[in-house]
């Protein structure tokens, strides 16, 4: 019998104990994988290469303060800028207040919007139709699927910030990965309907030539409006997203402390099981030694068993996490779920590594004790 075979055999000698341990470790690693996935999608995802070429310019004070519309032409003159569009968060309701009906609506300029958001894929004839119809809307394919919208359907949004209920016709459906679930409509429609909004925009989305231009363009824009009545703050799309997360509070510390608690708990659980398992086999260890197994051999047997248990638990947990994120992103109530909330390969590797390390740590002490017991004492042990 090989060493590996022996490890597997002994790991499943007490089936119930092994299964319970695996399940316990599995649930903990499920949580750990989810937390790491949240962390990754918040802080590490730089987004698509296209996203890195976009700069968001907002009012220095806050997103709730609007910018003058004439800023657009001024931003356009800055070297490195390919296109710039005004964006306004409409913040309306669709049908009612229910969270499953909530999605983001943006007012923008259809003529140039797709030059900025070149990562959205739309059939050219639909784009042209959207540009022609001032009351037209472009919607996300997933959003369209969810609400059963087709090209030509009419929908009404209910304004909360703006005192208008836009009646829009769906003219274009775009696809993008990950799906942002946003509806876009013409900002001129909003300007005509809401007098105080005329000549203003929520923020600007600027597309620059290459990624390297981003810092320079950011600085050039902010310098340009430094002394203007509405000073601006420009940042990359990624930084803009991060500032939203920062608003949620100290998310980093929150995730880290949960991860810490989880890892510590699995360590305890796993060490506990190994201690139990070793204790019940004291006399067996003595027999092994009598047969000529060295201390090191005995040590590696037990550590191997502990690693096997935690890695199996880890695999189960990771699989559960993958299933969970898939279900979550498909569920109709997934409103606050950030795009890109999927378990990636590096996350899986890290989770498995954690499981293996937990196995080594939790197995070593009981295994060391077992390997050190003298044969005579071990044989005499009753347990």
């Amino acid at each position, binding site marked *: 019998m090989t060493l590996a075979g022996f490890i597997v055999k002994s790991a499943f000698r007490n089936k*119930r*104990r092994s299964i*319970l*341990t695996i*399940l*316990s*470790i*599995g*649930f*903990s690693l*499920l*949580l750990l994988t*989810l937390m790491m996935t*949240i962390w990754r999608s918040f802080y590490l995802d730089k987004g698509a290469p296209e996203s890195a070429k976009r700069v968001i310019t907002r009012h*220095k*004070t*806050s*997103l*709730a*303060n609007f910018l003058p519309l004439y800023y657009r032409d001024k931003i356009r003159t800055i070297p490195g800028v390919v296109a710039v569009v005004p964006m306004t968060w409409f*913040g309306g309701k669709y049908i009612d207040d229910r*969270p499953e009906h909530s999605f983001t609506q943006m007012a923008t300029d259809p003529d140039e919007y797709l030059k900025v958001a070149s990562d959205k894929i739309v059939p050219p004839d639909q784009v042209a139709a959207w540009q022609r119809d001032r009351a037209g809307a472009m919607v996300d394919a997933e959003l369209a699927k969810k609400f059963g919208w087709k090209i030509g359907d009419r929908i009404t949004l*209910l*304004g*909360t*910030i703006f*005192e208008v209920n836009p009646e829009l016709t769906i003219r274009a459906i775009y696809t993008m990965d990950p799906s942002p679930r946003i509806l876009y409509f013409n900002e001129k429609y909003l300007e005509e309907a809401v007098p*105080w909004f005329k000549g203003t925009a929520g923020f600007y989305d600027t597309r620059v030539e290459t990624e390297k231009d981003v810092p320079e363009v950011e600085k050039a824009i902010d310098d340009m409006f430094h002394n203007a*009545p509405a000073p601006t703050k420009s940042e990359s799309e990624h930084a803009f997203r991060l*500032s*939203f997360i*920062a*608003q*949620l*509070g*100290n998310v980093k510390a929150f995730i880290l*402390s*949960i991860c810490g*608690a*989880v890892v*510590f*708990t*699995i360590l*305890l*659980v796993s*060490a*506990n*099981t190994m*201690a*139990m398992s070793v204790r019940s086999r004291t006399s067996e260890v003595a027999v092994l030694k009598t047969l000529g197994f060295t201390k090191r051999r005995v040590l590696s047997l037990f550590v191997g068993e502990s690693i096997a248990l935690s890695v199996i638990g880890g695999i189960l947990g990771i699989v559960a996490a993958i299933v969970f994120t898939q279900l979550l992103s498909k569920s109709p109530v997934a409103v*606050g779920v950030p795009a890109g909330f999927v378990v990636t390969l590096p996350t899986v590797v890290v989770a498995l590594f954690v499981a293996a390390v937990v196995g080594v740590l939790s197995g070593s002490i009981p295994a060391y004790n077992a390997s050190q017991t003298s044969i005579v004492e071990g044989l005499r042990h009753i347990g």
Partner: protein
Amino acid sequence: MAIPIKYNLRNLKMRKGLTGMTALGIALTVTTAIFLMALLAGLNRAFVNTGDPLNVLVLRKGSIAELSGGFDAALFPTLRELPGIAKDSHGEPMASAELVVVIVLPRKDGTGEVNVTVRGMMPDGLEMRPGVKLVQGRWFTPGQREVVVSDSIQKRFAHANVGDTIEFGKGPWTVVGVFDAGGNAYESEIWGDVNQMASDFDRQGGYSSAYLRATDAVSADALKHRVSDDQRLKMDGLLEPEYYAKQTSSGAPIKFVGIMVAVIMAIGSSFAAMNTMYAAVAYRSREIATLRVIGFSRPSILTSFVFESVVLSLLGAAVGIVLMLPFNGMTTGTSNAVTFSEIVFSLRMTPAVIGGAVVFAVIMGLLGGIAPAWQAARRDILTALRD
């Protein structure tokens, strides 16, 4: 006859290492659960306790928040003359037109910038909020570039002490006082004179919202409907507590993640507790058989082992509660989903939270204990004795 409790306690004590590790595992789970529940309790308090039931908040029709409100200033006199409004200390109707804007302030610890709500109000605005107490300095003077800040703003942001100046709008504002709002939503605000604010933010001629003070609860309700039904106004009236209660939805992401984390950790820990209890049963199979021989019934053995498991998890709960105590009262902030500004709240280990944690631990103990106890009770006496 029931098996004495002492039997279980002694057993737990005898297997110190195992008991300790399992209890610690449960303790960490309970700590996480308490942390999340305390967070939600603090957040709920920030919204639920805000607002005076006699205050009627008036917003433009269709608007859901003060920040996105906005109505013509010319309508305010009409509002003020509505019947059912209480008189202020000068014998005038107690009403305050307010302007709510959001500004950006740097955090004191340098971890970034945060949106903070600034509220411009009329002198009656202070009179209408008797729950808010001045703790330092004085209130702002109408017509001056002066502001008062809440004590948590003072704690969390740079340059927010009495005598400091805060830069926003068109220039510096002097902080003249600090108020304590008792942990509600006002705790996240900066207050000043409405007219000064309006000129700084170029918002003359319009207000975000208006507050009307009703004489009593019945007239508050009537006043609310009078505002909503008045065709000239095109405005909605709602009682102040109703408005803030709606904003508790800001806690939804925390609630979702919190419940998910707590449930997954609890299941994991239940399995661990089950393992420990199975080991305890296996270890004592001869002992259990002996108990049966002496005459203890199966139900009493079942109860005894379930009880032991519950004691184990209660031990964990106690450790968990103690571990969390230093964090009680810790202040933190999150984004208000309705106003986009930061809402400050503190972790609150209320009796309900502690009670919840204990119940949570007992459930884990029951889940972990029932199956092993069932096995202990069902074992055949003869085979067990021969083991």
